[in-house]
């Protein structure tokens, strides 16, 4: 993915037009309430989260073993397993496969990993038609837009936006009634499902012991994608794996509850190889593409924990920053709190160091994460690396360094304090400052700032000690 460096520009767009962000907020507020209700309702929320964390961290610590086990079991059940070092390799495998098999039309279930590698573009360049079938992704594709949320890709569009796009691109009469739009999508995509030569999906979680793939969804497009076409390709981030079916059941207990508040998604689809000789339908070929693309470099350091993520979306939904700015401001396939760690992790800090800064470290993400991932810790590590790599603004380093120096010397600190107190009285009104200078002016753009006290606490204490002012 290309580096898109203009965070400030994207932020400004979000500030100028609050429409998309306010729609995202509408969605995340509802979903957060549902997820919270599900957490309260389920008596095993905490123990399942503890166990989920244990399973995921154990798996990461032994990832090579489980990937090897998965490959062996998958091949034993008739699955072809391809290990892709990077995005190009992964894409090339699929493009070559499609060419070899004469595939003209691909239907796709939702897959962030395929967006990460930009698979659609690679197939399209080779003359293959690619149709996104998740309703939100389908509409986004029609609109030439990109998803703004992991779970709700078109949270930023209104029903009128959807109606316009579908009317224009599908030639149906304009309507903004969601049921009618859905019916139109169903009919249009049904035909694509039944004629496509290849289906491509992501992978919520792979199961090592049986070489199986678990996919969760509500619409049925994932089931159609994995049942109708002759060839199925599953794109899998190498970290998206658990050891056993029992382990999978634990993760399934927390995945939908955290993401949408459902006990289970409408469809939990568990695939173990291509159709068997005595079965009546299903793909004749199943290929699993296991992708590294920078994950092993994250695994080999202090960002390893983020690989425990199961992409439930809970952190996006709860994040007060995401809620205000929406997904597109992050400029990445992976937005929100998890994205602020994964994006610089996969693509480097230099182009993406704004993302870890876009947080108050409030900790709400960690609180709702079903894997209890300590996202604030990793955002902090990324901020430290930003400073070490000289990417932090000069004024900030200069002022914090100066402050640290003063703070380490009691006399200097006290005298600086007195100086600030005297300066503060200039340009203030009734104890409050309306305009701060320089980099601090951002504060006073929307808030007053308190005038430093003429008599700081330590002075008052001294006076008290010496019997009054």
């Amino acid at each position, binding site marked *: 993915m290309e580096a898109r460096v203009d965070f400030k520009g994207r932020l400004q767009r979000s500030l100028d037009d609050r429409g998309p962000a306010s729609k995202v907020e*509408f*969605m995340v507020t509802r979903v957060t309430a549902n997820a919270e209700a599900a957490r309260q309702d389920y*008596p095993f929320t905490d*123990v399942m*989260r*503890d*166990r989920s964390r*244990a399973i995921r961290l*154990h798996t*990461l610590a032994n*990832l*090579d073993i489980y*990937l090897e086990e998965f490959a062996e079991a998958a091949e034993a*059940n008739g699955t072809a397993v391809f*290990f892709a*070092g990077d995005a190009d390799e992964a894409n090339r495998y699929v493009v070559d496969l499609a060419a070899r098999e004469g595939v003209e039309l691909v239907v796709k279930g939702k897959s962030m990993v395929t967006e990460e590698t930009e698979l659609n573009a690679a197939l399209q360049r080779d003359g293959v038609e690619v149709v996104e079938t998740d*309703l939100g992704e389908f509409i986004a594709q029609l609109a030439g837009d990109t998803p703004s949320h992991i779970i*709700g890709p078109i*949270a930023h569009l209104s*029903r009128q936006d959807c109606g316009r796009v579908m009317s224009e691109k599908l030639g149906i009469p304009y309507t903004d009634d*969601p049921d009618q*739009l*859905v019916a139109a999508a169903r009919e249009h995509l049904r035909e694509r499902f*039944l*004629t496509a030569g290849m289906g491509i999906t992501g992978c919520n979680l792979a199961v090592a*012991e049986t070489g199986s793939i678990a996919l969760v969804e*509500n*619409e*049925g*497009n994932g*089931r159609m994608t994995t049942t*109708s076409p002759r060839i199925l390709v599953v794109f899998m981030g190498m970290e998206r794996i658990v050891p*056993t079916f*029992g382990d999978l*059941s634990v993760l*399934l*207990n927390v995945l939908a509850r955290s993401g949408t508040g459902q*006990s*289970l998604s*409408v*469809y*939990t*689809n*568990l695939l*173990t190889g*291509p159709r*068997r000789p*005595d*079965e*009546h*339908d299903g793909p004749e070929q199943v290929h699993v593409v*296991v992708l*590294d693309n920078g994950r*092993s*470099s994250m*695994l*080999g*350091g202090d960002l*390893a*924990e983020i690989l425990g993520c199961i992409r439930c979306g809970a952190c996006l939904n709860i994040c007060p920053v995401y809620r205000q700015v929406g997904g597109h401001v992050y400029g990445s396939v992976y937005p929100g709190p998890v994205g602020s760690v994964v994006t610089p992790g996969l693509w480097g800090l230099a182009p993406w160091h704004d993302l870890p800064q876009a947080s108050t470290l409030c900790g709400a993400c960690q609180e709702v994460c079903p894997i209890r991932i300590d996202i604030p810790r990793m955002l902090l590590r990324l901020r430290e690396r930003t400073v070490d790599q000289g990417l932090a603004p000069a004024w900030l380093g200069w002022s914090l360094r100066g402050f640290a120096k003063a703070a380490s010397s009691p006399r200097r600190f006290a005298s600086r304090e007195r100086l600030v107190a005297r300066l503060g009285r200039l340009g203030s009104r009734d104890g409050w400052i309306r305009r701060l200078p320089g980099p601090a002016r951002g504060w006073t753009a929307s808030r007053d700032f308190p005038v430093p006290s003429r008599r700081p606490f330590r002075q008052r204490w001294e006076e008290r000690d010496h019997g009054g002012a």
Partner: protein
Amino acid sequence: MEREVFLAGVRAAQQRAVLPSMKPGPLYPKERRRKTVDWFVESATAVGAVVHRAASADEVRELVREIARGTGQAVFTAWAPDQLPVPGVASYLVLAGLEEAAVSIPADDGRAAAVRALDRIGVGVTGADAAFARSGAIALFTGPGRPRMASLVPEVHVAILPEDRIVASLSAWAEITPSALDRSSNLVFIAGPSRSGDIEMTLSIGVHGPRAIHIVIV
């Protein structure tokens, strides 16, 4: 990339991984004893399934016929007679005037036509291999006589569920069925009709999967 090279890279990274400590919990939490059938009915209804109770095989056939006729659909498909928990369901529907279509997708040139023909099917009748009371979900294995499409392509899915296959939860079932994934190429848990909230968070039913699911408990 060569598998060994890939895995060697992973192995090397693992040595340096900073992974905080973890506090393990139970794999299968102990569920409180509850009347699972009533609980299942409540949960399944809450996720939008229509649940029926039948006291006999006759009643099941009657109910399925009534449901099928109520859809106004002309064509149905069903799991093979030896795969459904109750005999004679398909023939009962044929007697009621519906046309039975088999789902059988060949691996050869007839494939495309067979797949297109699936779109005619309006009702799919299946069994259910398990059901989870907590989530209101049913579990279906694919296999001989049990096409996946029967529960996916039709507008209406009718699942016949023997009462004794209802357990408290997915965890409870996973505990007693650890080799579930080996049995066939596909296992699916279904919790209600197909849905989406993608357009302005408005719930729409019947996106790509069935618009309605009827569960007949016997």
